[in-house]
């Protein structure tokens, strides 16, 4: 799991990446002193280290609100995690192939609609039914799948096969699975941040394992310096992105992977072939909402060499590292206030 640190101000590492490749970095000087009312609340959720940062509110109020935000993140985790038997996703997956459609509530319907829209907008690359392929890939063991394993699973993958009508969803073939992992964490970050904002927080952020949604700038009005993990060196930052609002999400080939005979196999699987993507070491996207940023990083990884024009057309900012270590970046044309 990659780690992203929110350096509270003085980290001196500037954006790396020249035409020659990533150069040796400068020493990172991170100040841990926090002036005034600036509280960070760490917790773990969705298999990640998470933090809610609230500034310019008294300690008691900040604690109260942080608790609410953390509860919201846990609620979403429980509701949509395919690893929890009671979740909506597990119920849908359990009914696969049974011929029974499952009724879902408005929130779930909204997310499924979003996933359906994204499937169309990404030429079929973003596909929440591609979770079934995990049965073929064992990243912990570091083994390639058997030749016929993927062939057997591919018929179970394909959003077009899902029956999604009204508020009822049906997975027609047994073994089909829905997986909200591609955007669940990002959605939770947005929900938690919006919740805090509605309750009076105007300086702070929500960081769920590197998917970050900023609520408002630092107490002094300056943007937060959000660090992006270096895709190859665990204890270094690739870049710092200054942000006073909006969201930053990152996908990379270093989060869950194994290397065999000099080739790297990462957890982002192409739904059409069942094999991992190879074009990018890391893609970070800046967008108004974390849900959009996270979905677009996944699509970018899947689009391979066509990723950058696609992201530009979606009007978002990005930071991408290719397999030669070269950095590509674009400023968001519509930055936020």
């Amino acid at each position, binding site marked *: 799991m990659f780690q992203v640190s929110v350096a509270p101000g003085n980290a001196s590492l500037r954006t790396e990446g020249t035409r020659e490749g990533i150069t040796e970095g400068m020493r990172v000087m991170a100040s841990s002193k926090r002036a005034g009312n600036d509280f960070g609340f760490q917790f773990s959720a969705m298999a990640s280290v998470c933090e809610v940062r609230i500034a310019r509110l008294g300690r008691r109020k900040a604690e109260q609100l942080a608790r609410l935000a953390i509860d919201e993140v846990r609620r979403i985790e429980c509701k949509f995690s395919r690893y929890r038997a009671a979740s909506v996703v597990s119920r849908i997956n359990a009914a696969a192939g049974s011929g029974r459609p499952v009724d879902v509530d408005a929130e779930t319907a909204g997310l499924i609609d979003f996933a359906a829209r994204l499937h169309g907008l990404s030429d079929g690359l973003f596909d929440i039914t591609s979770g079934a392929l995990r049965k073929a890939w064992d990243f912990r063991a570091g083994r390639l799948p058997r030749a016929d394993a993927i062939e057997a699973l591919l018929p179970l993958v394909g959003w077009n096969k899902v029956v999604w009508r009204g508020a009822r969803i049906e997975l027609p073939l047994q073994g089909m699975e829905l997986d909200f992992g591609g955007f669940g964490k990002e959605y939770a970050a947005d929900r938690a941040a919006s919740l805090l904002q509605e309750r009076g927080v105007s300086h702070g952020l929500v960081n769920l394992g590197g998917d970050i949604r900023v609520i408002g700038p630092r107490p002094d009005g300056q943007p937060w310096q959000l660090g992006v993990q270096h895709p190859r060196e665990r204890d270094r930052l690739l870049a710092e992105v200054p942000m006073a609002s*909006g969201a930053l999400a990152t996908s990379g080939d270093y989060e869950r992977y194994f290397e065999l005979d000099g080739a790297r196999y990462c957890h982002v699987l192409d739904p059409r072939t069942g094999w991992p993507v190879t074009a990018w070491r890391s893609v970070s996207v800046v967008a108004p*909402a974390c849900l959009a940023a996270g979905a677009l990083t996944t699509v970018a990884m899947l689009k391979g060499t066509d990723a950058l024009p696609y992201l530009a057309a979606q009007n978002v900012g990005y930071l991408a590292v290719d397999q030669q270590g070269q950095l590509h970046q674009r400023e968001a044309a*519509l930055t936020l206030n």
Partner: protein
Amino acid sequence: MKKAMPLWAACVVALAGCSSAPPQAWEKGSLAQPGMAMGSDPLGERYSQHIYTSKENASGGYGVGGGGCGCN
């Protein structure tokens, strides 16, 4: 006034040709740029307005509460 009319009309046409959608909350980044605020340099604007009010006859349009002076 006659000479100023075509200039002003062109401005109105240009304005109308701009994107007509009022910005959504996430589109307001450009509006927060320092040069975009209406009153971005209070002291400097005050000096300028004071000079023009003393050397010309017109005044007003910007705000209330300035107070007078015997400037010649």
